[in-house]
């Protein structure tokens, strides 16, 4: 770990981490632009960087992207990222009362504390969890990937059928190309351009950036009166009274972040609701109550640390952003999972170290520059979108110096737009695309080891647990509805 910190403090890594965090904060603050989009757009640049620098840049973007959302959530009531939706509940009323600086100060402080506490879990649990995961064989990995995919699909917003369909569709789009097991073309339909399949970067940039820009271009720029912070951000010694709330929010955020598919917005919501239930003054929540901002911001930032745990120990993404990070590691010929701690410890520990330092940098950047960031957010977005589109085109082209990738990107932009129109979630689609090769490889290895005997899975307890959890995730909504109906019927009978 010490070596990782030493490497991180080399000037180029620190520079990339600062740039990444700064960019993340600005992008996170702009409603409509997300950390996933920024990470997908900067991935092509990391091709030419050494893996440690690449990882520090992306982790900085991730931390900044989630944290920056609080600026517009408090000042404009427009959360820059979905993770900051709950911050608007009390942050914006505080700004309306003339307490914008105080709300920003509390939000930033809670974000940093949330990040640092979840870093403790990340640093403490990851090596041990990775050692435990070394016991896993192909059956365990296959069922683990299946469980993560099913959870992500089922728990994503909207219909469960559409979530599962999106995951299957994403997996299907990953199939064309050379099948590495037999070295033969699969689903290429005679096209030589399809031999290398759909590249990860064009798919990510198309599905996230292009579809988002085409959608945003059709909607007028949201306007709102923003009261710019003018005074310094106030923080008091008496704020120590929030220590318990900060710890509670951070622990909730970390544990929710650990579960695939739930995300930072739900972490913030659960933390906020818990705080409200435990409060002696629940009626004050939603009216500009300081603990509301503390609960939401500590949890949403802490969820990043939680989500990084299954990513680096088992190679399982908790959300779209982690799926993109898996793609980034794969691009650098690194396989996230327990072996990462042995094969590339500088990356595994580098991610952990970068996460902590990114939180500290986020504090410094946001504390010092929040008023300037708020100004950038108000710039007209027409020019910004044009610039992003140019980056999309050049980024996709730069991967293989091929326009085929650019056309693929445009095609997936349309696919993303169509899926969004039909209310099919994009997250499971992209995660299915990323996890499909891993799932297939592990299933094939499992069946080879067991001579094609599927029942071999019954002798693998961990695999059975993962499979049972996947099944329970699919069946739970129906069971819960049935139980709810039975309880309501019971109450009605009692009433009569």
């Amino acid at each position: 770990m010490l070596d990782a910190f030493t490497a991180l403090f080399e000037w180029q890594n620190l520079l990339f981490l600062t740039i990444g965090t700064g960019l993340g904060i600005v992008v996170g603050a702009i409603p409509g632009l997300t950390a996933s989009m920024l990470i997908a757009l900067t991935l092509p640049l990391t091709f030419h960087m050494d893996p440690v620098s690449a990882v520090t840049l992306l982790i900085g973007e991730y931390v900044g992207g989630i944290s920056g959302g609080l600026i517009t959530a408090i000042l404009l009531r427009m959360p820059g990222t979905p993770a900051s939706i709950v911050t608007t509940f009390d942050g914006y009323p505080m700004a309306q009362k003339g307490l914008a600086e105080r709300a920003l100060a509390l939000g930033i402080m809670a974000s940093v504390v949330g990040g640092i506490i979840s870093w403790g879990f990340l640093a403490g649990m990851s090596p041990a969890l990775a050692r435990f995961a070394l016991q896993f064989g192909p059956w365990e990995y296959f069922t683990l990937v299946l469980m993560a995919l099913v959870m992500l699909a089922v728990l994503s917003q909207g219909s469960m059928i559409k979530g599962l369909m999106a995951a299957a569709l994403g997996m299907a789009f990953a199939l064309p190309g050379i099948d590495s097991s037999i070295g033969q073309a699969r689903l290429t339909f005679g096209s030589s351009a399809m031999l290398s399949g759909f590249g990860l970067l064009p798919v990510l940039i198309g599905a996230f950036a292009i579809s988002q820009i085409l959608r945003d271009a059709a909607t007028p720029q949201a306007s709102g009166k923003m009261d710019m912070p003018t005074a310094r951000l106030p923080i008091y010694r008496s704020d120590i009274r929030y220590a318990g709330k900060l710890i509670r929010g951070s622990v909730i955020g970390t544990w929710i972040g650990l579960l695939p598919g739930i995300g930072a917005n739900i972490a913030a919501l659960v933390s906020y609701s818990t705080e409200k239930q435990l409060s002696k003054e629940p009626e004050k929540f939603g009216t500009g109550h300081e603990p509301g901002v503390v609960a939401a911001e500590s949890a949403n930032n802490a969820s990043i640390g939680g989500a990084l745990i299954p990513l680096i120990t088992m190679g399982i993404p908790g959300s779209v952003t982690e799926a993109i990070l898996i793609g980034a590691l794969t691009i650098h010929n690194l396989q996230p999972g327990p072996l990462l701690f042995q094969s590339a410890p500088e990356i595994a520990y580098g991610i952990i170290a970068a996460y902590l330092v990114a939180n500290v940098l986020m504090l410094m950047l946001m504390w010092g520059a929040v008023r300037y960031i708020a100004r950038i957010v108000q710039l007209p977005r027409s020019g910004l979108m044009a610039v992003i589109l140019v980056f999309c085109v050049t980024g996709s082209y730069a991967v293989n110096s091929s326009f085929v990738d650019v056309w693929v990107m445009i095609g997936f932009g349309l696919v993303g737009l169509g899926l969004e129109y039909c209310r099919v979630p994009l997250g499971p689609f992209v995660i299915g695309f990323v996890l499909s090769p891993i799932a297939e490889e592990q299933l094939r290895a499992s069946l080879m080891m067991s001579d094609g005997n599927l029942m071999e899975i019954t002798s693998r307890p961990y695999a059975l647990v993962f499979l049972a959890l996947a099944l329970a995730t699919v069946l739970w909504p129906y069971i819960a509805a049935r139980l709810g109906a039975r309880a309501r019927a019971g109450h009605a009978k009692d009433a009569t």
Partner: protein
Amino acid sequence: MRDARRQTIADIILALLVSAGAGLLFIGAAELPPPRFEPLGSAALPRILGALLIFFAVLLVIRGLLRLRAGHVTEVARSDADPRRGALVFVALVAYVAALDFGRLPFVPVTTVFVIATGLAIGARTWANVAVFAGVGLGLSLAISTILERFLYITIG
């Protein structure tokens, strides 16, 4: 149009497209050789996914029809969205990539024109904006082409 009806039509179109995609998976899988060195073979996953996609598509259609029959109707919230602006940006993007790919036109001027066109398609159409977007486009394209050619040895356009 009412939301339930529009959503059902969108779901049915989605189900048809997904089923067509599943059909392609089956056609492609049929061309693959049977497994020789391992039990699963490379055609298995396309077939499994094809079957799953058709299953989900059928569920989607049934659910949509049930929703229509039950008469779940909610008025669509009024939206200020203007799809023509999105379409204009898309056309500009396709024309830009086509100019670079098929036309082999130089990157800097084409990018400058693209930034102006996209900026005006989304933002206010004023001469001041034309000048701003031209400056942004020129600066951006020069910076990108310098980085690509000098440092990454990549030529575009």
